[in-house]
């Protein structure tokens, strides 16, 4: 049962990627391709390539097939065995002309080559390619806004690995701080969010004030570079620590565990579950990337969720002074016994009162 549900989930995750193989370009992708094409200029010659007609991935024109108009493939090869009554264009791939191929217009390969195994081309044959490193690198740079699900997944996995490494370091060296910050999130979630937002807004002004303060003192000017580095370190540390605390809290909630004494193993498990949950969200958003507006909405949602988590975590770090101040810690506990334990039941008739315990006199008083 569990296996079948996993398979179904995996299939659902992979569905968008498969669907992306033969879809057209989104408007954002078209814009970035247009920018890239316009940057080519003289290499492209008089050609006016319309990316709106392009299809993701490889494309083929079968032997008996006749296509009226231009045929464009984007990041894939264009295999021509039939007739193209227009231009045959591959952007980021090769155009392969088989002996039965007939192209009445031009053949153009941008970021690839034209492999002519035969066939007939009425127009010109043009290819723009780069030796390694060359135009492919340029192509990758230009097309970077259009990240593939695979690239997004790799990026997400990379971030997960980095955060997991940080988490293990924190567990070894600052576990009590992490627990304290998590407790603060649990008890003061709203306040932590508010403080976190204010903290984000205050980052730049605080830095400016700090630098101004150092500048006024003149001698402090020498310290400015060090302060800038220290400030960046502190900020990055606070954000990372807060996010980990938030992940830990989420992991605990997902396992429906109340706060209390937890072993290191429990904390590790909860932390990894929390981080895994965030990773899963980003992975789903990555896979849904090619789904157009749905993918964009999903990604926006995940961004907002992560941002809220970071804000709450940062707020909790500030409130708990990086986990050094616990919300449940008593302010002062002078008496170990119950406040009223000295009292005895007193009948109306009255009994002799017991002596109320008092704190031990200080050494000076004793003398």
């Amino acid at each position, binding site marked *: 049962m569990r296996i079948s549900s996993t398979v179904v989930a995996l299939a659902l995750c992979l569905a968008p990627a498969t669907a992306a193989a033969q879809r057209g370009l989104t408007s954002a992708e078209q814009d970035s391709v247009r920018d890239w094409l316009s940057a080519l200029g003289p290499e492209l010659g008089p050609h006016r390539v319309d990316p709106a007609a392009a299809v993701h991935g490889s494309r083929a024109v079968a032997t008996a097939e006749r296509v009226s108009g231009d045929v464009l493939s984007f990041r894939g090869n264009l295999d021509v065995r039939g007739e193209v009554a227009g231009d045959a264009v591959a952007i980021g791939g090769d155009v392969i002309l088989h002996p039965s191929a007939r192209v009445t217009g031009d053949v153009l390969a941008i970021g690839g080559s034209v492999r002519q195994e035969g066939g007939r081309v009425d127009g010109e044959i043009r290819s723009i*390619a780069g030796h390694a490193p060359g135009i492919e690198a340029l192509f990758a740079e230009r097309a970077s806004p259009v990240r593939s699900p695979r690239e997004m997944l790799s990026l997400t996995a990379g971030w997960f690995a980095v955060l997991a490494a940080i988490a293990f370091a924190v567990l070894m060296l600052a576990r009590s701080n992490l627990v304290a910050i998590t407790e603060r999130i649990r008890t003061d979630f709203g306040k932590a969010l508010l403080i976190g937002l204010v903290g984000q807004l205050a980052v730049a002004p605080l830095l400016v004030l700090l630098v101004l303060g150092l500048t006024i003192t003149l001698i402090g000017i020498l310290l400015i570079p060090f302060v800038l580095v220290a400030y960046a370190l502190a900020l990055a540390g606070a954000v990372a620590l807060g996010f980990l605390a938030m992940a830990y809290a989420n992991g605990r909630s997902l396992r429906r565990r109340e706060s209390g004494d937890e072993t290191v193993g429990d904390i590790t498990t909860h932390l990894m579950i929390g981080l895994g949950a965030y990773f899963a969200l980003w992975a789903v958003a990555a896979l849904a990337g090619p789904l157009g507006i749905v993918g964009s909405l999903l990604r926006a949602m995940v961004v907002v969720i992560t941002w809220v988590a970071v804000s709450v975590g940062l707020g909790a770090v500030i409130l708990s002074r990086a986990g050094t101040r616990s919300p449940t810690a008593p302010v002062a506990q002078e008496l170990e016994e119950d406040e009223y334990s000295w009292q005895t039941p007193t009948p109306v008739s009255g009994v002799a009162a017991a002596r109320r315990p008092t704190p031990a006199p200080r050494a000076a008083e004793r003398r």
Partner: protein
Amino acid sequence: MSSARSGALAAGLALAAALVPLPTAVAAQVPGVRQLSLSRGTAGVDTLRARVSFTGGLLQIAPASTDLLFQAETRYDADRARPVAAFDSARGVLEIGAEAGPLSRGFGLRRMRRERRRDVPLADLTLHLSRTTPTELTIDATAAHGWIELGGLHVHMVRVSASASETHLSFSSANTARLSLLELSARAAAMHVDGLAAANAERVMAAVTAGQLELAFGDEWSGDIALEASAILGQLRIILPDGVALRLTARERLLGRVEGVPAVRDGVYQSANWETATRRVDVLASVTMGTITVVRAGR
């Protein structure tokens, strides 16, 4: 370890770990060497007018081995050169080549990278031309090393201009069309022409300014040739096979002189076999502060 200290340590560790992926994010900028290929079949084009404008690097022109109108491969440094590759099928005009880009533009890594490659050729161009289509060819090479083989083509007009270049032009086999004009110009350049007689040219105009130009006629002749030779501050050598009749009209100005002919009377030299020879060259030599030398091959 106190809580505060461990918190700071954790923050430091967090930042250090977060900085690990940075080197991959700051991707190294790579040199932008690109390759542009352009070719076309002969269908629908009666005459090809090829204009080659090439700067910096190796220029090679040769007859095509397949039934193509032309095939051009340009390899160029995209940071420093701009390729030219356009074909107007209606007029049969091909514009091909590479020109130097604006070196003064650009900052930072891109500029540094470009400056580092200053002594690397801007571009290499290989152009193959149809053997059957009537062709007019204009070549303008600057700071280039040119190897131009036009033997076996069907050219009826050729203009080759070289500046600050070294160019080898040859007709290793006969031009299949009558060449109405072959115009050669070397400015601060060296140009060597082999098999000039095989060009099947009616008229040859050769000019050198502050450079060297060598015209070797070879043995494959198809008719008389009229040569207008001009040298200013340069040297022009005419290499003729034995038996070829020569008539040379010399215009020597300001330290200019014509060498290699026995005697110039009233500015005109005519070889003894001029009236009877089947292969004749009529040279109008104009020289200013330079020399025009006639050399008989095999002597």
